[in-house]
């Protein structure tokens, strides 16, 4: 499979945000020259930011348009030697799995961008809306984040992946820290707020990526010789395609044990933990609710919509592709942790008082399905897991945008504080109802397809335990319905709470983001075929690399 | 060649004369006495040079030291001690330390002297021509440098002695 550069379209997609970024910077630099007012600069940077994310989304769709779903090898490759001394190449390429994530990133970032626009005049001054604070800086970081994420999904070189992984991490810290909620003391005296959440998020993910770095180095030194882009021979390689081929020839099995633990196991676990923190998996999930509660709406949209998927994507691309035996070895552990994610997340949701925290924990629960799907290793389960990633990537942004709608007006997210809102905001109620139904997996909407495939695939797995796991996690279907409807009940139904007399229904900016996502949810629920075509070949090759007797 | 005993006797006489004069220089309470004792010491040393058949040196010693420097010292004594009282401005202090130091050095000299193997006595030959050759032969560079030093000293002494235009600062 030749890996020479054959198209620049992907590079354009990944670096369009960078172009937008530099445009804003240039604008700032030229500001004194052009004597621009602060207002003009804000408007311009918003326009540039919007254009950049629109372009990225359009390019993503273009990529999908002429993506040949018949083959599983990489397409739109752009590869050249980056650091000769360390055999590191700038190597980006897309197969079905990466492409799905790139397209999803484009869509969600576009939604995030639109949601970051100010509120067209409805803002009261004593609640400074985040979209009016330090606008150019916001958009620069926003586009940097987008570039980081697109790069993460497109890179096929382990080192480059790690670089983009870190690039993705940094702007997120500032976006949550500066534009998030101000620091406050929550009822039991602990300091919470944007900065706290940002630090917690940053350190937590950084700890994970440190583990990943160690694994990266271990893999590099255990890898065999390979040819670089410029044809020269390299002793070791970061190139993912070569690494996969070498892994399948058993090079890592022969690699020496580290600290007495077999190489494959320890590297697998290190990488897995690095990604598990991002998913988030059960014991490492406590950063998610804090990050969501205190992040501004568009940022928690992106955080839930995309950043959680980078963790799962990492597991598919690295843990499953390079260490298939590792996944088989750890299948029980991943499965059980996935189920804990599902059931534990669902039950904790039931007791949440804060709407965003509830949605955050529901994300934890839904990502548990992806873990269970990955562990089951059958075609349906894997497809279900990837599909759940995509559908959750559409539904959870909708949920967070909806949470944003009510927060922008009422400045509180306390579920108990509302009541009978349907009377004042009927359209908003309808949409939230729709989003809740999609999220709890009503058949015919996006949520259901992922769930049913994971259940079906896990049930048909080789190992008996998965049948037990499915039975337990199916319990979450009821609990999820419970907490969503209970929330629906407390906020929208019942007698009207006259404290919210001043609330008004949705404005055009909110409709612009929510209705497209709603239509997308329906399409993905009713007609999942195009997405299946996209990811089918990749998953087949991943499964084909399974040790004999596992491929279900 | 004269009888060795007599020559020894001459040597000892010279040595004793020089040392006694030096003792006066060091120990006399009166600065003027010291000055004149200095004259005598230098004179004694010149004698010793002669005894050592270093004839040019003896003469030069007589010219430079006895004629020049001691007179200069006398001048200095006369210029500086007249004002503040009697000429006995030559008090000694920390006598103890000085005596101890003297005795120690003398002892060291004795020890060193006895330890040094007495080389063979070279013939008493007039040395002036040889020294002249040496001065302009092997030692031409030191000869020139010495002249420069003398000039510098001359100039230095003149400027110092004349003092500064604005009086001393």
């Amino acid at each position, binding site marked *: 499979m030749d890996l020479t550069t054959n198209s620049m379209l992907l590079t354009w997609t990944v670096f369009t945000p960078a172009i937008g970024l530099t445009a804003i910077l240039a604008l700032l630099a030229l500001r004194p020259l052009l004597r621009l007012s602060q207002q003009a600069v804000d408007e311009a940077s918003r326009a540039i930011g919007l254009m950049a994310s629109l372009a990225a989304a359009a390019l993503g769709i273009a990529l999908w348009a002429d993506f040949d779903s018949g083959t599983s090898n990489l397409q739109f490759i752009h590869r050249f030697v980056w650091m000769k001394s360390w055999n590191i190449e700038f190597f980006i390429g897309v197969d079905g799995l990466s492409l799905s994530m790139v397209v999803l990133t484009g869509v969600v970032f576009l939604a995030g961008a639109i949601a970051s626009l100010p509120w067209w005049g409805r803002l009261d001054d004593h609640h400074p809306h985040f979209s009016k604070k330090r606008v150019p800086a916001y958009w620069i970081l926003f586009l940097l984040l987008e570039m980081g994420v697109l790069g993460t999904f497109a890179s096929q070189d382990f080192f480059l992946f790690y670089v983009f992984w870190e690039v993705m991490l940094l702007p997120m810290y500032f976006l949550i820290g500066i534009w998030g909620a101000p620091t406050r003391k929550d009822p039991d005296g602990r300091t919470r707020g944007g900065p706290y959440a940002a630090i917690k998020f940053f*350190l937590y993910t950084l700890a994970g990526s440190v583990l990943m770095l160690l694994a990266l180095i271990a893999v590099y030194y255990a890898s065999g010789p390979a040819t670089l882009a410029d044809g020269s021979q390299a002793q070791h390689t970061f190139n993912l395609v070569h690494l996969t081929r070498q892994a399948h020839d058993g090079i890592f099995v022969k690699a020496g044990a580290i600290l007495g633990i077999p190489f494959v196991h320890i590297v697998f676990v290190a990488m897995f933990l690095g990604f598990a923190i991002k998913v988030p998996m059960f014991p490492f999930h406590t950063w998610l609710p804090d990050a969501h509660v205190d992040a501004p709406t568009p940022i928690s949209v992106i955080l839930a919509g995309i950043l959680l998927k980078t963790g799962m994507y990492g597991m598919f691309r690295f843990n499953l592709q390079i260490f298939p035996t590792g996944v088989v070895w750890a299948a029980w552990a991943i499965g059980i942790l996935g189920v804990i994610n599902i059931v534990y997340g669902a039950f*904790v949701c*039931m*007791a949440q008082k804060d709407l965003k925290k509830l949605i955050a924990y529901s994300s934890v629960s839904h990502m548990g399905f992806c873990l269970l799907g990955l562990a089951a290793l059958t075609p349906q389960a894997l497809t279900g897991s990837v599909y759940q990633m995509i559908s959750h990537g559409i539904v959870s942004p909708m949920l967070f945008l909806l949470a944003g709608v009510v927060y922008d007006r009422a400045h509180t997210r306390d579920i108990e504080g509302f009541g009978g809102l349907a009377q004042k905001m009927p359209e908003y109620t309808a949409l939230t109802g729709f989003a809740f139904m999609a999220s709890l997996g009503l058949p015919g909407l996006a949520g259901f397809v992922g769930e049913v*495939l994971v259940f079906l695939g896990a049930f048909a797995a080789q190992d008996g335990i998965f049948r037990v796991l499915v039975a337990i996690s*199916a319990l979450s279907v*009821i609990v999820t319905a419970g907490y969503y409807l209970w929330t629906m009940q407390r906020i929208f139904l019942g007698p009207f709470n006259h404290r919210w007399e001043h609330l008004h229904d949705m404005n055009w900016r909110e409709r612009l983001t929510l209705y497209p996502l709603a239509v997308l949810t329906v399409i993905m629920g009713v*007609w999942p075929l195009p997405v299946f075509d996209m990811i089918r070949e990749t998953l087949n090759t991943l499964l084909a690399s399974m040790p004999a007797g596992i491929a279900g | 060649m004269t009888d060795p005993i007599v020559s020894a006797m001459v040597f000892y006489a010279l040595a004793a004369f020089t040392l006694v004069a030096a003792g006066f220089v060091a120990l006399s309470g009166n600065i003027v006495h010291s000055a004149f004792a200095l004259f005598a010491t230098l004179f004694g040393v010149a004698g010793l040079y002669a005894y050592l058949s270093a004839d040019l040196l003896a003469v030069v010693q007589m010219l430079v030291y006895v004629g020049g420097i001691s007179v200069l010292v006398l001048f200095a004594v006369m210029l500086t001690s007249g004002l503040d009282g009697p000429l006995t401005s030559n008090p000694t202090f920390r006598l103890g330390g000085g005596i101890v130091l003297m005795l120690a050095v003398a002892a*060291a000299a004795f020890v060193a002297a006895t330890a040094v193997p007495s080389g063979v006595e070279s013939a008493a030959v007039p040395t002036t021509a040889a020294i002249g050759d040496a001065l302009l032969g092997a030692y031409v560079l030191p000869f020139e440098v010495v002249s420069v030093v003398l000039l510098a000293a001359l100039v230095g002494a003149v400027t110092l002695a004349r003092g500064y235009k604005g009086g001393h600062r």
Partner: protein
Amino acid sequence: MHEVAPVLQDFPLLFLIPLLPLLGAVWNAVMGARMQRRFGNAAVHVPAILFPAGSFVISLWSFITLAGAPHGTSMYNYLWAWLPIGNLQADVAFLMDRLSGVMALVVTFVGTLIHVYSTGYMKDEPAYWRFFAYLNLFMFAMLVLVLGDNFLLMFVGWEGVGLCSYLLISFWWREREKAVAGMKAFVVNRVGDLGFSLGVFLLFWGLMTTPASPPASNHGQVDAHGAAVAAHGEEAPALGTSVAFREVEQILQDPVKRTRIVDRNVLGIGLITLVCLLLFVGATGKSAQIPLYTWLPDAMAGPTPVSALIHAATMVTAGVYMVARLHFLFTLSPAAMTVVATVGALTALFAASIGLFQNDIKKVLAYSTVSQLGFMFVAVGVGAYWVGIFHLMTHAFFKACLFLGSGSVIMGCHHEQDMRKMGGLKKLMPITAATYFVSCAAIAGFPFFSGFFSKDEILWKAFNSGNILLPGGGLILWVIAAVAALGTSFYMFRSYYMTFSGEYRGAASHGHDVVAKADGAHGAHDDPHSTDAHAAHGAHADPHSDPHAADVSGHDAHGGHGHLPVESPWAMTSVLAVLGFLALAGGYVGLPLLWGLPNVFEAWLEPVFASTADRVTSAGFGHGVEWALMGFSIIVAFGGFFAARVLYKDGRSPIPARLIASESALVQGTHRVIFNKYYVDEAYGFVFVKGSLVLSRALALWDSRVIDGLVNLAGTIGRAFSFLQGAIDRLFVDGLVELVGNVIQAAGTRMRRVQTGRIQAYVQGMALGALALVALAYLLAW
């Protein structure tokens, strides 16, 4: 048993049947509010009725072409592949065979009628458009369920109707308990759906992993977890993997494959039995059988047309349809059939007993629905599938008529649902009364009414069934069912007489405030458990109770004038008339063979269940027994009727009041228990709802305290450690450096005194130094 290969005849318009109501729903949802504001109600309900009517026409057309087609053919319409992954092939395809044809007709016909009825009932409702949007959406979901070609598509309809019932029950969401009732319905349905989906997964897995060909070499034993241990070599070709009903049916028709799958067991129970039981759990959720019935009585919080359409005619019958549709599975496991039948019978009796004492007219009808569904499950349980469907159809007619009748009564009495505040409506609302009576007769099983034919057939089939593993076979079922039938006819006529006979007890006219108030007061302080007498001795006794009306009717005023109940508008009464007629004549489609008359209904459904007909055995009782049973059921019907008539007609007899007021603790106790629905609701509420709340609160606390705590602890430990390190650094390392500095400085100050400024001291020092050197050199040399 002749093998009928299913012939698929393409009928391109089939997908329109579910699609039209969907279009109606979308149209009303989007445009409804505006249309209603600008053009009034008509603009809303005209499209809302036309779309379902259109789908009724198409389903009728398809039904007719189906009738014309040869045996075993079914109308098929493939749209697109929905979930084509690996060996899973679930696609969006609609199939109308004879069974789903009947169901589609019933759904669309009754549905359209109820739409018409709703125009009258909901006339002055501000959210008129939203109601019709939801109704259309429900029709769409129900039709997807009925016409779905495979499990997953049926599941879409399955949960879709659950959603619509949630939306419609909590239609008047302003009152809190109505919203809560909706939520309860959805969650309980969801529990059932969980069972259904697990059953589907188990079936899919079972089919996929059971080796088709009997393994050659070893013992071919399948281990406990069902993992195919068969061929160690290549993977034996599985039975085939499909979720489409007809394909699974075809697989199970092949005797070799059938034996392979039947004798396979999982966790000690037969695979097929486990699948059927799980699917039946889904059915109990949807069709409100024990134990998941608690949501139906609360569902009465929804508007009455909703109760009629969803909670009587269509949605609740989905469970029965599902069992009938999967007859090829259920007949493979007698155990499952027995469970279905017994649960059905028990539910019938249980619901009937509760129905005896309800005072809210809709609650009575709700429990009667649960009871009638129990009958249907008895039918499909014993393998008499066509009877079950037949009863389903007739029940749809007369129960819808009863509900709509109660609807017009409620509207007439200004939204009063308590029967004790009604009475004497026969004179005031003649049509409603008439249709109500006909339907009561039908449900009770009066001869020549539709209910008689279907229910009697069920009793006979139960009595005569050979598949039941209970001791004495169908006998027990028959006994329970008979008692339930007796209860049914009693409480139905009780409700008839309390509502329509005697004097109007409602807070009718202003003129007679005194009486009304007295009456009202009278009513007010009578809390529920003291109003009804209860026949203490045993369930079998001839239960008769005294309507509260008795002690009041005596001095009741002669029915005041003013806001007296008035007959409902024609839109509602016409529908009542149609349904009343069907309640009367509906039965003639399925006349009993005993009478030598052609049974059209059974003939129609026979090919559908042909493939499994041989497995349904009968206990071999002769016609004589059948005649006897038919006679007995007539006696039961009239018995219930007369008892109710004696006790409740015109509120004359004092027995009910006296029984209620009787001091004996036993009577009081049992009455209170039964009246409060055996406290099942409260038990569920306490165990499940409260339990999960407590668990979730505990987990949330644990999450924020322990796990988050650990993370923060890691943070604080990090901070403490760095502080410690800072201290060490400051004290030791820094300390040493300063120490060195100080030492040097001290030494320096002491050395300074040496600089006395006196030259001689320096010379002396130098001399001594030189001297020391000389001495040293001397010493060393020496």
